[in-house]
């Protein structure tokens, strides 16, 4: 381990307007290691990596690559220096072939030598034990295939320093293990790998060194010792900044069944079956958590319940009747949701708080009567919604885009609870919220279910679900599993990754 440093970043500060995303962060990565960068969502991991990759300039601070000072104006310069990055959502363009994706931005010459390129591509693939149909469109690749192609892209560019942002987010456990095996091969050949992740088992099992960020600040940087038994707990504490205390099990007794799904199947965006015969029921008086790795089919399940995606087969019973066919009727009958994507699905950013308050409930009192908008009623409702979770805003007539992400989320959460729903479908309702705000949200949600509603909550943060929900369902590769009242983190974790 006496090799020099591949990356040295010192005193890196990054501000976006008034927001400090990174505060004097230092990161040193030794050559030939797998270095983990961990932290909660919003800790600044991705921002730090984007600075290293030349996508953002740092507000303050400097960095050296292979002990030479660098200052990248754009990603092209970083690529030239030997840095490669695989972003969480991949940068593969579906309409180009695999070979074209492989070369893009790093073509060998003005004229593309077709057969020589394929030969080189084959050679790189063989080196990693991968196989590709080079002439096929990349849109046909599975997530694992895309991840593999991304790694070959780094090799094609002779990247010496490889940054992988949440590389296993969309992968099955087997594929994740295979990925780390490939990364180890690369490291043996002299590459340096930085993995951005929030999955501790991966860090402990596969990485050499770990750096922890919290709230844009460096909190730890140490070698990984797999022998240390309480390492996971200690790292977890470093990440969240406190010991995670698991609360008492809830004493709520579930009441009547409000929504029952029987063997429903839903297709994903590529037409594949993403939800496989899922059956579950939601009863009055309980909050049900839906755990699972991102991309296990939660999105499709929710879309089917919203009515934006058709249910291929199976039945959903809602309040004793078959679920209405249109989104509008479902909303009217008391099925309400907190969608995943605030910007795209939950809010109209150019609109005022007033106008946004009515979205989804705009046909009925107090927002409207007989097709006419009730402006006074709407204003009153908007101010109630804004005050429920103490949303910080200037005026109700300001565009909602002027609110911070966390405040927008409070507004969306409050709006859903305001409508006195029977069933609440919440997708990552605590995203962008701090711990106090999260607690406040779940307190209100509990109040709502105690008054006879029920809730299904998706979160990628298992601890959040363990802490706040009454019962946890697990989704893995489109299959739904019941865990009963189990609070065993390991058991649920195993189900999530399909290892149970």
């Amino acid at each position, binding site marked *: 381990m006496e090799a020099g440093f591949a990356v040295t970043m010192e005193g890196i500060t990054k501000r976006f307007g008034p927001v400090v995303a990174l505060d004097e962060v230092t990161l040193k990565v030794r050559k030939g290691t797998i270095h983990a960068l961990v932290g909660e969502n919003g800790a600044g991991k991705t921002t730090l990596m984007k600075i290293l990759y030349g996508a953002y300039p740092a507000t303050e601070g400097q960095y050296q690559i292979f002990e030479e000072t660098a200052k990248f104006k754009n990603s092209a310069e970083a690529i030239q220096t030997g840095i490669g990055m695989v972003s969480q959502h991949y940068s593969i*363009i579906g309409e180009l072939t695999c070979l074209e994706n492989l*070369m893009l931005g790093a073509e060998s010459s003005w004229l*593309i030598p077709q057969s020589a390129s394929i030969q080189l591509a084959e050679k790189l693939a063989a080196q990693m034990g991968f196989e590709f149909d080079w002439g096929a469109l990349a849109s046909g690749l599975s997530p694992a295939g895309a991840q593999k192609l991304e790694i070959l892209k780094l090799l094609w560019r002779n990247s010496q320093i490889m940054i992988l942002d949440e590389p296993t987010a969309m992968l099955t456990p087997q594929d994740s293990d295979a990925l780390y095996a490939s990364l180890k091969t690369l490291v043996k050949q002299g590459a340096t790998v930085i993995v951005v992740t929030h999955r501790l088992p991966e860090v402990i099992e596969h990485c050499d060194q770990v750096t922890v960020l919290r709230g844009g600040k460096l909190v730890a940087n140490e070698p990984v010792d797999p022998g240390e038994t309480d390492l996971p707990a200690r790292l977890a504490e470093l990440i969240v900044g406190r010991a995670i205390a698991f609360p008492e099990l809830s004493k709520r007794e579930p009441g009547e069944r409000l929504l029952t799904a029987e063997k429903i199947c839903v297709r994903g965006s590529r037409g594949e079956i993403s939800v496989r015969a899922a059956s579950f029921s939601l009863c009055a008086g309980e909050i049900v958590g839906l755990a699972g790795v991102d991309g296990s089919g939660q999105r499709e399940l929710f879309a089917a319940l919203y009515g934006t995606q058709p249910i291929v087969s199976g039945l959903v019973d809602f309040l004793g009747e078959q679920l209405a066919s249109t989104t509008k009727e479902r909303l009217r009958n008391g099925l309400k949701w907190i969608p995943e994507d605030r910007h795209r699905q939950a809010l109209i950013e150019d609109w005022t708080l007033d106008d946004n308050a009515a979205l989804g409930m705009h046909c009925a009192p107090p927002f409207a009567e007989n097709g006419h908008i009730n402006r006074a009623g709407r204003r009153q409702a908007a101010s109630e919604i804004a005050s429920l979770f103490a949303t910080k805003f200037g005026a109700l007539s300001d565009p909602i885009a002027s609110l911070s992400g966390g405040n927008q989320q409070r507004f969306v959460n409050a709006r859903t609870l305001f409508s006195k729903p029977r069933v609440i479908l919440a997708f990552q309702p605590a995203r962008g919220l701090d711990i106090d705000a999260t607690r406040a949200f779940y307190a209100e949600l509990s109040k709502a279910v105690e008054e006879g509603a029920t809730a299904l909550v998706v979160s990628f943060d298992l601890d959040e679900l363990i802490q706040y929900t009454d019962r946890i369902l697990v989704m893995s590769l489109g299959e739904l599993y019941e865990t009963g009242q189990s609070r065993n983190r390991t058991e649920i974790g195993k189900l999530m990754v399909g290892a149970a």
Partner: protein
Amino acid sequence: MNEFITLLGGTLTLSAPLILAAMGGLVSERSGIINIALEGKMLIAAVAVWLIGAKTGNPYLGLAAGVGAASLFSLIHWLLTQKYAFDHIVSGMAVNALAFGGSNFLDKRYTDPSQVSFAKFDSWLYWIVAIGLPICLWLYLRRTRGGLRLMAVGNDPEKSRQMGVFPLRIRLVSLLATGVFCGVAGSLIVSNAGSFNDGMTSGKGFIALAALIVGGWRPIPALIACLLFGMLQQVQIQFQGEAIAGVMVPNWVWLSLPYFATIVALAGFLGRDRTPKGLGKP
């Protein structure tokens, strides 16, 4: 037999400007810029060729002026869509308006009343360029670095940027190429007609756009569509008022066929959707 030769010649004459303009549209739309300004770019080129070709008596200078004028308008188009991030439709309409107004102004103000002709090249030279260009473009898109990057930018500018490709630069080059192709097309239109008339492109830019869409934004199918549309026009001129294959087709239906075909193509009845995914994205 004679009729056939007339048909062939006429088809080539009418198709060549369509092909050139369609290829101009192809490079810009494939790079992600919605281009409804082909018409205007050809028109401004036509007036430049007409004026400079007559003033200098040199066909090379005339053509250069046409290409230059269309490229200048393309540059404006690039500034508006890329630097100022205007909506592509609004930019395209503004460029068209400037070209329509500008060409009228230049023609009326600067044409020497005694001018009856201008220095020009023979049509067959343009024909060779028009047939060769789609083949060259096809090779360019499939076999070169520039072509690959152009398609990447047109499909997903954001991801291309991550791969170190600069959408703004690629689109500048693409739009300048559009200017050059439209310049040549405009020069051909005015050469065919022999003199400049107000609005003389008479919708050719939109037919070219139609051919591009019907051809699924691919060079060779777009070439075929242009030839087909050119032939439709020639048949209409040649057999005006006669029954074709025993059916009396009204003139306006005949003239509208390219537009009908485009609507049908956009409705998805002619194969899968091949619209570049990054069309109109920043």
